[in-house]
């Protein structure tokens, strides 16, 4: 799975999170920070992780979630890691 494909899927998920301003999703890059750039409330981060698991049909390790950074690239890395683990 390509990184851009993952980002596109992630943005699709973010569009269903109403506390993220849809206008801010136009220019999302790997360096975009959920909390600083998208003003995502911290309570929503776990919701986003859970939705991402459903969208990409993966399951993250609890430890990975605990240590998750707040940038888009952190989530993309996590998805690809979980995908790779699933395919191994």
């Amino acid at each position: 799975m390509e990184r851009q494909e993952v980002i596109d899927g992630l943005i699709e998920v973010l569009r269903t999170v109403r506390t993220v301003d849809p206008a801010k999703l136009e220019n999302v890059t790997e360096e975009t920070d959920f909390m600083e750039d998208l003003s995502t409330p911290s309570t929503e981060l776990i919701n986003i992780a859970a939705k991402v698991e459903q969208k990409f049909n993966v399951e993250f390790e609890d430890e990975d979630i605990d240590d998750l950074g707040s940038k888009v690239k952190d989530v993309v890395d996590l998805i690809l890691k979980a995908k790779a683990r699933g395919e191994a």
Partner: protein
Amino acid sequence: MPVAGRKVAIVGMAGAFPDCADLSEFNKKIFAGTSLIREWPKAVAYNKQIRSTVSGYISDNDLGIDPIYLVEGYDWPDTFIDTLGRIPDINLSTADLGCVWAMINAQEAIAMAGWTKTETESEQTGVVVASGGGGNVIARHAWHAFFELGKKSRQAGSHTVDRAMSYREAANISCLIKNRGVCESIISACATGLGNIGYAYRLIKFGLQDRAIAGGVEGTALETFIGFDAMQVLSKGFTPAQSSRPFDLNRNGFVCSFGSGIVALEEYDMAKARGANILAVIDEYFNNSDGDGNMFYPSYDGQIRLWKGLAAGGAHIKPDVVKVHGTATPVGDILELISVVDTLGEDGYHITAPKSMFGHMLGAAGSVELVSAILMLQNQQVLPNINSDTLNPELENFQKKEGWQGSMKPAQAYRHLIPQETISKEINQIVCLNYGFGGTNSAMAISRDI
């Protein structure tokens, strides 16, 4: 205890009503005797699994609200969009459907009351709102994901607690309007709606708050409906409009409905001083319990004591209309009718059961029916008891039992008290009655401000 001289005014009201866009449509329909009950496709879809299929329901996408679903394969709303821009997304993220209505209605009631931002956000403004049931829609899907699908707990959603907890309506309203006073829920089954308003009335009457947003809510939930369907207590075998038949000889159960009723209360002199439009004055509120150990069966003794308690504090109780609980269950209606007649006599007032139009809204029943009573004061009209076509010419079984202390006349003898059409007359005071499982009884008297 009450503080001498303090009175409580109702200065705002709002609601979410089945098959109605707003309060104005609700007002028009119920005084025209129009039923708000329809066949519920969501119930019909379960075929023979479900016994009753009629309800006064409000769908997820009514009232300018759009549900947002999770990624494909999930058929329950993850959150909601307010297409009319009334409620910010951050507040919607912590709300189930009933909480969305509660927040919208709180805003509308405050607008009608004319409270300033400073007044609303004051330490002297409280929120006392609840529903009868838990957040059953949210809880079911959360538990299903964990127990049946074996998913991680986070798949239940990080808002399972705030969207399903018992006092979610009060919490969501308080976070929206940012009041600094009391924020609580009073939960007493089908007496919840009136109970919350009664408690808020006491907060003001006792000098603890100057203003309060109060009421009851029951968000549409098939999960809630199923519980009552299982008890075989829901109406069956009539057309939707004829399904809710308080007092009628052929009634066979209540219609399970959903909605919201929210009022804004204010200390009377303060409201008067700022020139507020006083919708009604609360003369008194009283509640008690049957004390007979019976969870379900209504108590004549409990209801007679309820009336005595309502007048015990010195309030002048002489209603022109009694808005009864009147659910259309076989025992409750006539027992309630007789407790009213044995208290007030056989003439000089009318009895109305608005559930005949919109069914039983459970935790919202008392508050939506109080809104209906305020509309009766405003319109100077008594709401009709639609479908009360035939009153029993024979005595009820409970009247034949040894030790029965009440009237020995059949329901038919009181036809003149129970209008089938809307009637116009001078209405200065209305007493509202609601009861709940567990033998809890509540009564509130409201009057015109004249």
